[in-house]
């Protein structure tokens, strides 16, 4: 999973793609209107593909509704991602400060870890010796 910033950028790119898809859907499937009673809709030429592929009004409406819903959902995703961006309440100085502190703590913890490992090894050796002596006996 990528970080939230990349997710957000991807979501925005997808929104753009949805814009384009929606635009072309409407551009492709709208119906034709006349401006005044004398106008006629020219019949499409047989040797060319028709410019618009008019859908029945209810199908067109349903398609628009679906696309609009998708757009809104994507928008909500984007806003959710925005509000979940991490660390908005830390300034750069704070961050550097805490990085430094963490580094020191890490060093201390690492030393402690090594001591603990050493201690464990020593005790293990002792235990081992004891067990061996028991077996020998």
């Amino acid at each position, binding site marked *: 999973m990528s970080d939230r910033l990349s997710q957000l950028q991807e979501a925005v790119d997808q929104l753009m793609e949805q814009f384009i898809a929606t635009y072309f859907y409407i551009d492709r499937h709208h119906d034709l209107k006349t401006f005044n009673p004398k106008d006629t809709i020219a019949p499409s030429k047989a040797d060319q593909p028709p410019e618009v592929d008019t859908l029945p009004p209810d199908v067109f409406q349903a398609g628009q509704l679906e696309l609009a819903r998708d757009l809104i959902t994507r*928008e909500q995703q984007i806003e959710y991602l925005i509000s979940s961006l991490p660390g908005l309440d830390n300034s750069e100085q704070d961050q550097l400060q805490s*990085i430094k502190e963490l580094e020191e703590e890490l060093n201390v913890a690492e030393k402690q870890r090594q001591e603990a490992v050493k201690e*464990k090894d020593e005790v293990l050796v002792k235990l081992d010796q004891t067990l061996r002596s028991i077996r020998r006996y």
Partner: protein
Amino acid sequence: MADTEDDNSALASFFPDPPLFWKAFTPSNLQAYAEIKQQYASQHGIPVEDVIRVPDLPADSDLIYLQPPAEPKDGTWRLYGEPQSLEESLQPLESAGIERLGPPLPGSTTTSTSDTQTTTITDSQSTTQPTTTDDTQPTSAFPSQQPTSQLPLPPSTSTISTTSAPGSAPSTQIHDTLHLHLKRLSKSLLLNFLELLGIMSLDPAAGSAKAADLRTLFLNFHHVLNEYRPHQAREQLIQLMQERLDQTRAETAANRAVAEKARRVLEGLGSVEIPAVDSVGVAGTGTGTGGGDGGGDGGGDGGYGLPSGPVPVGARTGTTVGDRRVGVDGEGAEEEEKRYWEREGMGWGVLDAEFA
């Protein structure tokens, strides 16, 4: 003669010839270069592996081919016709010819051209009013925006004007502003798309301006996010370090717990097994001589059992002693044997209990 032959083969060959300086890589040259490098490293007190380039080699020798060329002096070069820069930095929106909407992020690589940033936060129903910083911005490009900084505000809007150089405002407010700014941008995207559809249904020729607006909005969105990346990277580093710290501490605690447990086992064993350990020590030295004694003791005071170290060994092995011993203490040896296995069983029982 040789030259013309070379030329002919260069023309005829399917693959291009290697670069001309390949002949400079002779063993003697490599040797000489390694010496020069070594000398340079010792002069400057750095390890030889860190020397990438020795600055002033004699220009007329072949040795200059043995090291990478120097960095370009002005920090830029061209690759496949594209200008490249040594410094990887985020190109400011303004220099890419894109209008900036909203305030620049504090600490970002971009520098503000105007000294005064006026941030206007509106509470009105129309949430699609992006922050405007610049009243020279053409208002026609974004009908949903107005340069509110210079206009009398309607009573329903509250204005927070922060006149600040970037970074001097309280950090929380800056980040709130960033949040708000991103949300406004995203809402502006939707609204501008709606407007684009409206315009295209009425006057398709006028749609390109709106499409350009959408483009500006998208670019701004991405730019703001990219400006935010260093912050995010630091944040992620902090998170990683925190995780590592927790992990290390958990490991330490686990190690200590195991050590503690093992020590307890040792103590538990110690209370049971110390005599046994002693008897082993004695047994090592005393098997040969003490066979008769031990046998007598073991038979006599079977209640104590333990002090008569040699006996169990003798009894078990049965090889070091003569006929006399076997004949005398057959019963005692049996008893010893039984006690030995009891002890052993107890020791392992303690162990089992500790490790369960």
